[in-house]
């Protein structure tokens, strides 16, 4: 853990020196403890003068201990603060260079924890936790070593407890770890049931599942309780064992000491000192086991931060080549997520300024094709090129200037509508803003809202309706005015008004930009210059609407089915089961 931590903190030298300070402090504390022996001996023997000198030494040890502890603690705080600041910075830099494809919804949830609370957890180690651990190890060792010099039998009796306690502690933690698997599983299950409970609340209520309880949630909660109970039952022998060993060691020391003392072969001051110090000896261990939970949390945070910082990023070219036109070419491209092949040897060229519709069942690879153009990932084989230039030979900035993306999960930032649209081109003129707003009917929304352009959209755009959000993202993408535009119609057109918005946007872009549309509306598909029909990651058919219809293949049957659906009316036709 120390090595990982040294990599994460801002100034490894300062960190090491603060650790060294902690060790030195713990050693001094041990020395101070042992000085009890000579002081006590002098007092017992009635030599008060000698006692005063040894006391002076002890005060000296205390002063040095105090100064060292203070200096190293202040240094530790600085390490923690500077380390936290630096870690926030490094994580921020890293996140902004990760490939776009890396950000799926699972990762986004855990990532924001690493970049937020996780950093605080890491900072706690140098600030507080480390000293407790260092002291727990160092002080007893120092006391033991010096005690050997005084009386090896007592020292041995004292030290013997350590390995036994350690073995019992290991055994106990192994025991609990085995049942932790079950508690982990139970709490994960309960969590997912709770989330489901919240998300499906409307259905659960209408099905009467909240009146007498949602059995699946309750089962998960009960299992969580049972798993927790089992964990405790399993942990008890270990905890009792550890405690018993610690206490038995103390009793053993009493017995050994008393036996030797009764035999008369021991120095009384040493024995008394050992008995008093024995308590000190065990205490840091107990303290360390008390904070082991916090250490575990910090360790996980460190691991996750390290893993994130080590995630490979997409290589950037040494010098960036700019494309000459807005054509898009796939040359023998294969791509998959893990073993799951999504695009299988696809080759095609989309001419600059043309409009292409991507059509196919869900999972056929439409979205992946669009994402590969924007270099969410690199292909496994083959090349994706814009204007004849491999996307890997362009810098991220240059590539992003070429493409504009309107996808389903477009995110809005807490801020005003204007800020969100201007994100695409901060230097855009008012006239440009008005133009895209009119085109996407965002102007209607702005007119309706009291604060107009200055209306806040809320965190993630939650204050706007789905349709309104979509108009903002569309306006934003149009304002960017990139040569290649990738558009996913999926969330569009839930009502005729929004359909018109999409239609107007496409009309205004045609001819001036290369338009690649993941198309769902029949009018978009039929009016495309070319249709790429995807099936299972392969280009199954391609051509114009009339040609494909005439060919009577996959596209033709798709079209007929959709055409039937669009003429559908709600009528009393079916019979009850």
């Amino acid at each position, binding site marked *: 853990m120390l090595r990982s931590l040294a990599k994460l903190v801002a100034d490894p030298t300062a960190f090491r020196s603060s650790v060294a300070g902690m060790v030195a402090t713990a050693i001094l504390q041990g020395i101070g403890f042992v000085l009890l022996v000579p002081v006590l001996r002098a007092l017992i023997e009635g030599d008060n003068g000698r006692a005063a000198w040894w006391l002076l030494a002890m005060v000296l040890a205390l002063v040095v201990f105090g100064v060292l502890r203070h200096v190293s*603690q202040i240094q530790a705080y600085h390490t923690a603060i500077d380390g936290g600041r630096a870690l926030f910075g490094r994580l921020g830099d890293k996140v902004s260079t990760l490939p776009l494809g890396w950000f799926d919804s699972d990762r986004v949830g855990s990532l924001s924890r690493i970049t937020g609370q996780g950093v605080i957890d890491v900072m706690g180690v140098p600030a507080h936790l480390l000293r407790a651990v260092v002291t727990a190890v160092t002080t007893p060792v120092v006391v033991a070593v010096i005690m050997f010099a005084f009386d090896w039998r007592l020292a041995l009796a004292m030290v013997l407890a350590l390995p036994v306690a350690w073995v019992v502690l290991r055994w106990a933690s192994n025991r609990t770890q085995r049942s932790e698997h079950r508690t982990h599983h139970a709490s994960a299950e309960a969590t997912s049931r709770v*989330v489901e409970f919240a998300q499906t609340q409307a259905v659960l209520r209408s099905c009467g599942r909240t009146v007498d309880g949602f059995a699946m949630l309750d089962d998960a909660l009960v299992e969580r309780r049972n798993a927790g109970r089992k964990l405790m039952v399993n942990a008890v022998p270990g905890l009792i064992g550890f405690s018993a060993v610690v206490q038995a060691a103390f009793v053993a020391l009493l017995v050994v000491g008393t036996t030797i003392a009764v035999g008369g072969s021991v120095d009384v001051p040493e024995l008394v000192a050992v008995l008093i110090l024995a*308590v000190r000896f065990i205490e840091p261990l107990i303290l360390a086991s008390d904070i082991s939970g916090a250490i575990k949390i910090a360790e996980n945070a460190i691991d996750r931060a390290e893993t994130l910082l080590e995630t490979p990023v997409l290589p950037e070219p040494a010098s960036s080549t700019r494309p000459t036109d807005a054509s898009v070419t796939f040359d023998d491209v294969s791509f998959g997520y893990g073993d799951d092949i999504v695009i299988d040897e696809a080759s095609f060229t989309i001419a600059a300024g043309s409009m292409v519709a991507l059509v196919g069942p869900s999972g056929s690879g439409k979205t992946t094709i669009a994402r590969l153009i924007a270099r969410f990932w690199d292909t496994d084989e083959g090349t994706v090129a814009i204007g004849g230039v491999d996307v890997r030979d362009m810098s991220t900035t240059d590539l992003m200037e070429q493409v504009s993306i309107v996808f389903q999960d477009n*995110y809005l930032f807490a801020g005003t509508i204007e800020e969100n649209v201007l994100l695409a081109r901060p230097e855009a003129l008012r006239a440009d803003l008005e133009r895209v707003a009119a085109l996407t009917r965002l102007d209607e929304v702005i007119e309706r809202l009291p604060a107009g352009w200055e209306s806040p959209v809320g965190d993630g755009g939650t204050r706007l309706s789905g349709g309104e959000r979509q108009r903002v993202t569309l306006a934003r993408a149009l304002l960017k005015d990139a040569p290649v535009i990738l558009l996913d119609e999926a969330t569009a057109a839930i009502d005729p008004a929004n359909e018109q918005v999409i239609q107007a946007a496409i009309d205004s872009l045609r001819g001036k930009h290369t338009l690649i549309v993941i198309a769902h509306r029949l009018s978009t598909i039929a009016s495309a210059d070319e249709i790429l029909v995807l099936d299972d990651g392969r280009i199954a058919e391609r051509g114009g609407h009339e040609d494909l219809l005439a060919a009577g293949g996959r596209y033709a049957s798709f079209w007929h089915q959709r055409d039937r659906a669009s003429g559908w009316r709600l009528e009393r036709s079916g019979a009850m*089961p």
Partner: protein
Amino acid sequence: MATTDESDVDSKPEPDQIGLGELLAPVRNQLILACVFQAIGALAGIVPFIAVAEIGRELLGDRDSDRLWTIVIIAAVALAIRVGCFFAAAGITHFADNDFQLAIRRRIAEHLGRLPLGWFDDNDAGTVNKLIADDVSAMHPIVGHTFIDITNTVVTAIASIIYLFVIDWRMALVVLIPFVAGIFLYAKQMSGYGEKMEQYNQSMADVNTASIEFVQGIAVVKTFGQTGRAHKRYKTSTDSFIQSFWDWVKGLLNIASLSDIVLSPLTTLTLVLGASAWFIDRGTLEVADILVFLSLGLALTMPILTLGFAGNEVQLASAAAGRIGRALAEKPLPQPTDPQIPLEDDLRLEGVTFSYGPDEPVVLDDVSLAFEPDTVTAIVGASGSGKTTLGRLLCRFWDPTGGSIRLGGVDLRDIESEELYARVGFVFQNVQLIRGTIADNIRLADPEAPQSQVEAAAQAAQIHDRVMELPDGYESVIGENVSLSGGERQRLSIARALIANPPILVLDEATAFADPESEAAVQDALSTLVAGRTLIVIAHRLSTITQADQIVVLDEGRVVETGTHADLLDAGGTYQKQWAADARVTAEVG
């Protein structure tokens, strides 16, 4: 959401939070019993320290081996009692906490199930999960540790101090010096703590918000070449967090470090030895008497250190308990005091007005409508006209702010949920499936429904064939070994509605493009739902509802037109204009 700043005229104040005392009520007896055990253990725990001193005294005196062994045995027995009592105490609190967590989780879930559905709009699944899973777990230190830890510290300290005063009051005062100084310094650190902690939490919340925004929005900003901007916002908030945290602790560093040094055992040891030497030199103290101050005096400061470490956890636990308390104090959707059972299936709105909150705009304004049994009514209107809200009021997701909705003449508020939902069902656009088998999902409304009925419903909903293609058929678990497309999910929810078989069904027809490939199948499934019941369709495309018995046109929350398709076209109003506009779009399909 009830906001705290709204000055309610209501005279009797509603508590906005369930206090910790009431939350803990179910485990109160166990906690008391545990504290008794802990107190006994703490008293027994002092004995070995005294025994060590007594052994020393005996060795310095007449070295009577019988007495020595008696002391050893007493020490050993006391240790055993201590360990036993501590385990009993910790065992009681931990098993109590285990049961407590289950009980409180059930209580929260049950309570949330009674809140107006609107609450779930303001509080997403993450919040609910934090409440039921994380916050309840975070309360563990309070139930499991805090009470017995405090008992231990207080009993040990008081008993030790009394014993030490009995032996020698001057030395006892000396031992108390670091103890009192430590408490004084600790109190000094804590002054203004609440306010500072508030600032810290605020600043921490900013970091989390910025983190989430940064991470969720990074894909977008990257595509706009604006990575630097979002990054800057994250950096600004983390920097200001670090800065404000540092400003806070900077002033406390010296005092915190000082209090750690004062409370360190080495300080007590040096102090006690120094004072002892002084008094011995004066001849007013025996060497044998100082031993107990060395052993017991050292034991005095240790529990304070342990408590210090636990302090932060207790802070978090109290905050968690506060959130749970506030959630439990949220007012549930009122249940009827004198429930009635509607005998007819006619549904009527009488002067219904609705807004989502006292300061929110009016969404429905004086709406009066009748839905006769076995008719199809379509609700149409531009987005924002209130049609979706109207659908939700019919299912009592919320209660109207004015007017009433009556089923068979009975106000929805006077019908028990079970009775209501047996009569009114809905199929909404965002299909909610539970992670269970397909069969469980279909029979959600009636867990006793036989397999044959489940399959018949699936057949009618056009999903049976798809289910049979799955390796485990109806026993396939959704979300685990099967994932369904949008259209398939919709058909499954239609099958579910067929099992529930309510005489009145509210249907949100915005199915478009969820899964274009299976749109036709969804439509065929929908058609089976229509037969033999009152259907209320929230329609987004006019072309699908031309056959409806009644079409209601909403505009800005008001009913502007009602009639059949033909009537409304003739009337030449809002409907006719919209129909013409839609026709233009459709015409372009060519």
